[in-house]
């Protein structure tokens, strides 16, 4: 385990895209990805609630072994509500672009407000995607 951690790259990947959607599919032969229902707002009648989410992100300028981590955080309280960690991914060419789909089970939304998916590569913070939860009755038509 310690040696695996030591092997992880310190080359900082460049985040090209990160977004949240309902679901994502990978076409087996071409590995092309299809994203369905991209959103950044959740409407609910009552809180707390849950919502299944899929995170898509795309990076380049990476070389070596990486472990990607995504933290799902309620911004107002700073609490981490879920965390996902990848297996080690090997990227051998800095010029290559790699993209990933990560499907979460229904994620907790305890209250209205902002929620973030924070992306880390080998514990290096790369960026975030934000969703805003709103009470349906308080949303202006």
């Amino acid at each position, binding site marked *: 385990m310690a040696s695996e951690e030591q092997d992880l790259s310190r080359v*900082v990947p460049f985040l090209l895209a990160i977004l949240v959607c309902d679901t994502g599919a990978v076409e087996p032969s071409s590995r092309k990805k299809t994203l369905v229902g991209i959103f950044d707002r959740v409407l609910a009648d009552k809180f707390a609630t849950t919502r299944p989410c899929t995170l898509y992100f795309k990076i380049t300028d990476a070389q070596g072994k990486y472990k990607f981590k995504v933290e799902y955080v309620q911004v107002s309280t700073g609490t981490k509500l879920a*965390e996902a*960690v990848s297996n080690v991914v090997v990227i051998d060419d800095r010029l290559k672009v790699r993209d990933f789909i990560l499907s979460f089970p229904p994620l907790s*939304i305890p209250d209205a407000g902002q929620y973030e998916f924070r992306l880390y*590569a080998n514990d290096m*913070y790369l960026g*975030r995607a934000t969703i805003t939860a709103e009470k349906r009755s308080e949303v202006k038509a």
Partner: protein
Amino acid sequence: MSVVSSDVLIEPLDEGKSEDEPLEGLPPFELPTAQTWIIGPALPETMLLGALRDPRLRLLAPLTISLERENDDIVAYCEELEEFGFGTHLTEAIEDLQVTIAELYFTLKEENDRLSSNLIRIWDSLRQKIKEVS
């Protein structure tokens, strides 16, 4: 990727339910209510910053950031560059620090020929870790 979360404790969303606005004439769908589980604090003592949000600059190596809560604010401090970022939450503090570092880079670049010894050290550190993207 594997997901490590308290997902098993959360009731799954019923099939067909959605938070989207309903079509005209249809009643709104409702998301299920659920309890919340906190799996940890989101404010670590330190973190590695792997990106500056300035399209002109790229980080070649991560910067170590220490994080502290000060009253209602979060303070992100980069010791090697002696720079702070402030915000009401972690991301705001990090983004403030990212802007500050980018500004520092261009300021020191411009004032390059008349820097004090301390600023020369910081400029060297910046040059080692940051690359300008043409």
